[in-house]
């Protein structure tokens, strides 16, 4: 391993280089981030043997990756915010076609108002697209997810595309110390891509097949089972990864000081680092608080969350998302997990960090203080409540 000082984007590019994709297709202009610029440098300097295809849009970037995957190539693409939305038409083609493409998405806000800063409304709006969704907390996890992505997506029982999400700027543009594994280690972890789900001149097949009412549900059922199968494969991949690289990951969630926690804050992505520090601070004052970091939104860790929070007095979900007219999408999913497990505790939703807004240490402390009241609410951090609180005058 070699210690390097890299941005999240660069770290991910190093991870992709280690995965040896045959084809990289990308639209290189805003809102694209420099992950593909770095990969184009690798191709140019010969350190990555890959076909790098500049396309005219994000829609074409994913279409191109689908075409490559359909002939049995390992394919990569990347996007962000409006680019992901422009790509949205192609997302279910990739998942329905069971093409194990890996995509990096830089989590950034969506218009209007126009805003290039980070939040998670882009990827969370695509939860139903049939893709596996992972969220990195730091640049090391980002690099590692590039390798995990192909390992998990290409597993025959899974055969599902993989979206690795990095918080825009906070991860993509922040430099930190990253261990870059050797190619030998990476090759030991990730075997070459072999698939029967491909066409060739010898075995011509149809690419965008159709299935009528009689069989459509069966395809969708199998697609659902495929992405659920990823749960087991993620754990298996992490065990193999730890054996080779010595770094441990903890499956669909990461639980920090939750064993005896009375109050648990549930988060996604890079904000988890700050929450962990606040948990440590409050624990020193004798407060029984903990952090549950969701690492995978799809497949969703229903049982894992229920198991962790079943003895807590209250939970809150802090997320950089709002499903307008309802609540944050992560919160909806968490509440469903609690309900299915028969856990009836107060659960609140804090919507923060939209459009790149800073979330301060004090705001995290305030969340832990507020949820002790036992009242469930949906709140825009720093603005006001939507459910039990009257709509804030500040927001009018």
């Amino acid at each position, binding site marked *: 391993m070699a210690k390097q000082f890299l941005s999240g984007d660069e770290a991910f590019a190093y991870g992709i280089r280690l995965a040896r994709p045959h084809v990289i297709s990308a639209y290189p202009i805003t809102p694209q981030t420099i992950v593909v610029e770095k990969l184009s440098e690798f191709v140019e300097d010969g350190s990555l043997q890959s076909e790098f295809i500049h396309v005219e849009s994000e829609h074409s970037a994913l279409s191109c990756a689908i075409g490559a995957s359909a002939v049995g190539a390992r394919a990569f693409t990347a996007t962000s915010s409006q680019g992901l939305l422009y790509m949205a038409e192609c997302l279910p083609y990739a998942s329905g076609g069971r093409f194990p493409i890996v995509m990096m998405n830089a989590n950034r806000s969506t218009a209007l108002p126009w805003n290039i800063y*980070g939040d998670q409304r882009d990827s969370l709006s695509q939860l139903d697209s049939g893709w596996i969704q992972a969220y990195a907390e730091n640049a090391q996890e980002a690099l590692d997810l590039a390798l995990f992505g192909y390992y998990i997506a290409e597993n025959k029982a899974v055969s599902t595309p993989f979206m690795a999400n990095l918080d825009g*700027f906070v991860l993509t543009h922040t430099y930190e*110390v990253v261990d870059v594994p050797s190619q030998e280690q990476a090759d030991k972890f990730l075997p070459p891509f072999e698939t029967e789900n491909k066409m060739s001149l010898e075995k011509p097949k149809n690419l965008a097949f159709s299935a009528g009412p009689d069989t459509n549900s069966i395809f969708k059922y199998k697609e659902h089972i495929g992405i659920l199968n990823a749960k087991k494969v993620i754990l298996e991949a992490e065990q193999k990864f730890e054996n080779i690289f010595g770094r441990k990951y903890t499956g669909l969630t990461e639980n920090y000081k939750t064993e005896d926690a009375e109050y648990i804050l549930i988060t996604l992505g890079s904000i988890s*680092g*700050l929450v962990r520090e606040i948990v440590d601070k409050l624990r020193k004052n004798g407060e029984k608080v903990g952090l549950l970091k969701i690492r995978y939104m799809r497949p969703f860790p229903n049982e894992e969350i229920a198991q962790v929070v079943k003895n807590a007095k209250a939970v809150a979900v802090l997320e950089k998302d709002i499903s307008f007219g309802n609540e944050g999408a992560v919160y909806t999913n968490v509440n469903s997990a609690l309900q299915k497990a028969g856990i009836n505790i107060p659960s609140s939703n804090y919507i923060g960090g939209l459009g790149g807004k800073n979330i301060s240490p004090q705001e995290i402390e305030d969340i832990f203080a507020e949820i002790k009241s036992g009242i469930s609410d949906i709140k825009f951090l720093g603005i006001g409540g939507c459910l039990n609180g009257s709509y804030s005058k500040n927001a009018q």
Partner: protein
Amino acid sequence: MKEIIWHGRGGQGAFTASRLLGEAYSLKENSYVLAFPSFGPERRGAPIRAFTKLDDKPIGNRSEIAKADYSIYLDDTLFNENSFSELKSDGIILLNTKKKIDNERVITIDGDSIAEKYIGLPITNTILLGALAAISGLVSLDEINSAIIQTMPKRLYEKNIPAVKAAFEEVSK
């Protein structure tokens, strides 16, 4: 944790300085670093800030630095009375200026003159990094030089390395 804020105008290399400091520090054993700019579109001439956080354990808080140990100004037109509000109680300001500032919390260096002599351009980011090394001891000259060599092409690092040394010696006087 040591926290450093870099102030400059777009094009002066404040973010590059924050990264070079981080890269130099990352050469130490058990070092953890975050280096990032104030996020947003970059425009030449507009005020920008960049941040470096240095620690011997993982850094979870990725938010902008509110109170710094060192606040560094590549451009003295950005320095004003409010500059002191973003310092820790024992925090220090390092200012690139030809003026004399009568305040024990402000250390000045005429970086422009050093830049003119060694680099031939009014770019002072590595010079202020050299000055920071002298007043803080956070990184050594050798560590800065290694970071510069890893980051810059030869035609640039050959000019910047003697400039960093000159700044280090100027502030050490």
